[in-house]
Every structure is written in structure tokens, then in C-alpha cells.
């Protein structure tokens, strides 16, 4: 029994040990699982943190992205606005000759098109096939030539001035090309501007100038001829006109031809150019047996011309009768004519204004001297003062160069002032010129005062003007004026501000004027001499 009990106890003990072991094992297992859970929890936490960070990054990137989108669209709007507000047509041409996507609204308006992007530039102009081919080749050379300079591109530009006509009307465009690099490839920036208004203005001014020139030349010619002779010739021309309009039957054509020839010669001799011109045409018409109505209308033109001439002659005679003789005003008239002619020859537009406070008559010698001086000064003003209209506009000046010529009376002096609102003297460039011509070393030139520089302008052969032509720009103009001033015991002074004005003042003592007149003013002459 005891044995049984002992055995039973032993079995129970063993079972207890086993249960204990199992419990320990289970605890171990629990612990393992616990730590595994911890690890997983850690991992999870890490992932969450990473995820959070990623989310932040994404958000930030999105914010940045939308900011730059905003910036970009703002820039694009600015660019569009800029392009739209430009009055000049602006577009770019890519290496293949095709127009790029960006262009100003004015480009479309000027070219009269809905769109230009993606079209070959040569096709934007309604031209003949030959010129289209020329434009195509020009674009190719302008973009791709390795050697051609900007000046060369400008010189071979076939579209410097091009007439365009379409539903919107006729206009003259000026197209300029500038090369630039974009993304490593060559492009052309094209600037298109409308020159029609400018051209119309230029034509108008030229027409006005021509009219003024004609009337001034006529006045000048008449001033030089005795009034009786002018009247006589006008009378002959007038009676010729009368017999023409009364029908040719009264006189034979060959007689009329002889008369017309005679009047032509006389008219030309005394400077009635317009009458002489009409006579020449008349001679020609008679020679060709022109129909009567043609000759009659010629007679009417002749009558009108003679009326104008006679009216002018009356005014001039009235002027003479007031005892002023050949007035300073006549010189000014000649000068205005000279300036206009000068301007026309160089293609510059000039507005000559003149005023005179002078009532003394001038003798012929003095007249010639002052005339030469003034011609030189006005020429100088045109040659050195002229600037492109755009440049003048930038400086707030009117488009056309204004030259003011004034005769003034000051105490015992006669003062002649020629002032232009042109580009003025570039004193620094003059300083460099002196060195370049080898007159002075650069350290010597640096010490020159404004007075020295002014003095230099009067020296023979000095000029800062970069174009030399037959009439001015040789730097001789001022030398001539100084020479004349010397001859008249006068003075000449130049004042100028770069890009604002140039003013030359010539002063001559009034007694010199009287003496050369030889007038009966001996007391004064004696007092002075």
C-alpha cells in the first residue's frame, strides 16, 4: 500500500514538475511573443514617422510647385501684356526659318494676319516668288552665316522698307533683324515698325519746303532785278497769254512761238523761272501743233503765275520805297532757301525760323560777306545738328530739326545768331578726335579746357561729324565764319550742349555797317576813326 502510495506520489511529483516546466515554457513563449510584438510595434512606429515625413515632403513640393506655376503664369501674363502693348511688331525666327510661338499683338496687326507662329518668315510677305526666294535666302544667311557682321546683315536686309497692301490698306513697313542665341541655337529677333506715318509726314514737309523754296527763290530773283524790267517782262507774258486765250487765229503759230521764245529768255535772265518754264512748255506745245484747249489752259496757268509774280513785285516795291533797300530780311530769305535746298539734298528735314530786328540796309560787299557766313552756319547746323527722328523724340524734341536765324540790334552792334536744337557738340568725342588725328597726345588732350575745345572747332579741318560731304562736315564751316568775322572786325562765339543745342553768335560793330554803306554819316565815322 505504501509502495502504491509512494509510487502515486512520485507520479504526481513528476506530473507537477512537468506542469511546472510547461508553465515555464509558456512563460518563455509569452516573453518571446511580447518582444516580437515590441519589435513590430517599433517598426510600425518608424514606418509611421517615415510616412509622415513623406507626406510633409509631398505637401511642401506641391506648395512649391503651385507657387512656381503661379510665378510662371504671372510672368507669362506680364510677357503677354508687354508684347500686346508694344507698338512694334516683335517675333522670333528659329534656326529653321519658322516663326516661334511668342510675338507681339502688333506683329499680327502690322502683317495683317491671324497667326504667324510656325509659318516660314518668308511667307508672311505678299511678294513675287523671286523676292520670296530672296527673303528665304536672306533669313538662312542671317541665321547661319558664321562670318557676316551685324552691319552686313543690315546691308543685305531685303525688307528694310517693304510695301504691304491688303484688306487693311496700304502701309510701308520697316523690318529689322537681330541675331541672338537661345538654348544653344541661333535665332533672329525681328522688329517690325510701320513707317507710313513717318513717310507721309516727310513727304508733306518736303512739299511745304519745296513750295517755300520756290517762293523764296522767286523773291530773291526779283530783288536782284530792276522792278521796271520785271514789270515789262510780265506785261509781255501777259499779252502773249491774252492772244493765246483769244484763239490762235489772230496770230500765226510761228509768230507766237518766236514771242514765247523771247519772253522765255527775258524771264530767265531776270529770274522769273516759273514764267520761263511755262514759256518753254508753250513753245513745245506750239511746235507740236497741240490742240487749242491745251494751249488755252496753258494761257490760264501763265496768267495765274504772272498775277502771283506781280503781287510779289508790288510788295517788294513797297518795301523798297520805305527806303530800307536790300534788307537783312532778304538775306534771311536767301538763307532759308539755302537751308531747305541743303536739307533736301541730304534727306534731312529742317524747319528754318527767322526773325529780324534790323532795318538798316546793307551794301553789296557786306551783304555778300554776311551771306557767306550765314550760309556756312546754316549748312553747319544741318550737317552737324541732324539726328534721326526717333532719337529726337527720345529727347523730347519735335521730329524736325529747328534752325533759328535771328538778326538783332544791340547798342552799337549787329548780332546774328544761328541756333539749332540738334545734337550739339560732343565735347568728349572732340577731345578723342584731337588725339586720333595726331594733333595732341592723350595726356595733353585731357588738360584742354572748354575754351580750348571751342577754339579747336574753329580750326581748319576739325570736325567731330563722322560723315563728310560736299557742303559741310569738313570742319571748314566755322573756319569760314571766323574769317569773315575777322574781315568785319567782328567776333564769333559758339555755345553748345551735347544733344541739346548749338548756337553760334556773330557780332559786327554797327559802324562797320554804316561805313561800308558809305552813307552821309560822317560825324559818327569820324568819332570812331
Amino acid at each position, binding site marked *: 500500500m505504501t509502495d502504491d502510495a509512494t509510487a502515486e506520489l512520485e507520479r504526481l511529483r513528476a506530473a507537477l514538475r512537468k506542469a511546472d516546466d510547461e508553465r515555464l515554457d509558456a512563460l518563455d513563449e509569452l516573453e518571446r511573443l511580447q518582444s516580437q510584438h515590441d519589435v513590430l510595434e517599433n517598426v510600425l512606429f518608424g514606418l509611421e514617422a517615415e510616412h509622415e515625413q513623406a507626406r510633409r515632403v509631398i505637401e511642401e513640393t506641391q506648395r512649391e510647385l503651385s507657387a512656381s506655376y503661379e510665378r510662371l503664369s504671372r510672368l507669362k501674363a506680364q510677357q503677354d501684356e508687354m508684347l500686346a502693348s508694344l507698338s512694334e511688331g516683335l517675333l522670333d525666327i528659329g534656326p529653321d526659318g519658322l516663326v516661334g510661338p511668342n510675338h507681339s499683338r502688333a506683329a499680327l496687326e502690322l502683317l495683317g494676319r491671324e497667326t504667324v507662329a510656325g509659318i516660314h518668315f518668308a511667307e508672311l510677305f505678299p511678294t513675287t516668288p523671286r523676292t520670296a526666294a530672296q527673303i528665304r535666302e536672306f533669313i538662312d544667311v542671317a541665321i547661319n552665316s558664321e562670318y*557676316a557682321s551685324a552691319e552686313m546683315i543690315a546691308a543685305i536686309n*531685303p525688307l528694310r522698307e517693304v510695301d504691304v497692301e491688303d484688306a487693311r490698306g496700304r502701309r510701308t513697313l520697316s523690318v529689322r533683324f537681330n541675331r541672338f542665341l537661345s538654348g544653344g541655337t541661333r535665332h533672329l529677333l525681328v522688329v517690325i515698325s510701320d513707317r507710313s506715318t513717318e513717310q507721309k509726314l516727310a513727304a508733306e514737309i518736303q512739299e511745304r519746303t519745296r513750295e517755300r523754296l520756290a517762293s523764296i527763290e522767286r523773291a530773291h530773283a526779283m530783288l536782284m532785278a530792276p522792278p521796271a524790267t520785271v514789270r515789262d517782262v510780265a506785261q509781255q507774258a501777259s499779252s502773249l497769254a491774252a492772244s493765246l486765250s483769244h484763239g490762235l487765229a489772230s496770230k500765226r503759230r510761228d509768230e507766237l512761238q518766236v514771242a514765247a521764245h523771247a519772253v522765255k529768255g527775258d524771264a530767265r535772265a531776270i529770274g522769273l523761272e516759273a514764267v520761263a518754264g511755262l514759256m518753254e512748255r508753250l513753245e513745245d506745245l506750239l511746235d507740236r501743233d497741240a490742240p487749242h484747249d491745251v494751249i488755252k489752259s496753258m494761257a490760264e496757268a501763265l496768267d495765274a503765275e504772272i498775277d502771283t509774280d506781280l503781287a510779289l513785285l508790288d510788295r517788294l516795291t513797297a518795301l523798297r520805297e520805305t527806303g530800307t533797300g536790300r534788307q537783312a530780311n532778304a538775306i534771311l530769305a536767301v538763307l532759308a532757301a539755302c537751308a531747305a535746298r541743303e536739307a533736301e539734298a541730304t534727306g534731312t528735314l529742317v524747319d528754318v525760323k527767322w526773325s529780324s530786328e534790323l532795318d538798316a540796309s546793307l551794301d553789296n560787299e557786306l551783304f555778300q560777306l554776311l551771306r557767306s557766313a550765314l550760309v556756312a552756319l546754316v549748312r553747319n547746323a544741318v550737317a552737324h545738328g541732324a539726328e534721326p527722328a526717333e532719337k529726337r523724340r527720345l529727347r523730347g524734341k519735335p521730329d524736325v530739326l529747328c534752325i533759328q536765324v535771328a538778326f538783332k540790334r544791340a547798342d552799337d552792334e549787329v548780332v546774328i545768331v544761328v541756333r539749332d536744337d540738334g545734337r550739339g557738340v560732343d565735347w568728349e568725342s572732340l577731345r578723342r578726335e584731337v588725339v586720333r588725328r595726331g594733333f595732341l597726345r592723350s595726356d595733353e588732350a585731357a588738360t584742354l579746357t572748354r575754351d580750348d575745345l571751342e577754339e579747336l572747332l574753329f580750326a581748319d579741318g576739325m570736325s567731330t561729324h563722322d*560723315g563728310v560731304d560736299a557742303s559741310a562736315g569738313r570742319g571748314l564751316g566755322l573756319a569760314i565764319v571766323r574769317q569773315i568775322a575777322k574781315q568785319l572786325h567782328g567776333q564769333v562765339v559758339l555755345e553748345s550742349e551735347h544733344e541739346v543745342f548749338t548756337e553760334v553768335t556773330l557780332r559786327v560793330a554797327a559802324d562797320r555797317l554804316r561805313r561800308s554803306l558809305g552813307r552821309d554819316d560822317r560825324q559818327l565815322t569820324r568819332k570812331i576813326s
Partner: protein
Amino acid sequence: MTILVVDDSAMMRSMVRSAIQAYGSTTAEIIEARDGEEAFQILRSRSIELLLVDWNMPRLDGVALVQRVRASGWKSPIVMVTSVHDPAKALEAARAGVSDYVTKPFQMLDLWNRISKFIT
């Protein structure tokens, strides 16, 4: 620097020479050739920094010379000085490799203004 002036007219060569000497460099060496062939031989034998070339010349004309010179890899500036005024012809010159184009008759100062940018 050395400048080569190519023209079949001795008068034109001397005018171009005077323009350079009067307005610009007095130190530049100026050598002359009477036609394209002679010019090409000179270009092969010595170093030239600027080439001034007439268009109409015997043996080898200006454009042909420019084409040959550019084909040989010569990269310095070439100025064409010519009485040919046709814009289409000027375009032809540009295509051949001319750097600038001056038409005759010219004022010496104008010529100088056009070529001075190439003269050091």
C-alpha cells in the same frame, strides 16, 4: 596686324591703303594683290588678319576667292569692297562668307568706319 588688299585697279588699292593709313592704324602692314589667284597664294604663305577684296577681277574673282579661302578653313574677317550694288549679289557675297560689304565709290571715312571694327 597684316591687311591684304586685293583689287585689279592700282588706284583702288592705293585709295584703300590711304583710308586705312589716314584714319586708322599706322602700324598695320598693308600688302596688295592684283587678283584672287595672287591673293590666295599670299594667304597660303603668310599670316593675314584682314582681307579686303574687290569682286570683279581677272583670273579669280572676289566671291570665288572668298569661297576658296573659307573652304580652306581661313576664319578671319573679309570685307568686300565693290561697285556691285545689287542686293541679291550682296546676299551671294554673304553666303560665300564675307563679313561686311562696302560699295564703291566710297568716301574714305565711310570705308574706314566699316572696316575699323576689324582692325586691332
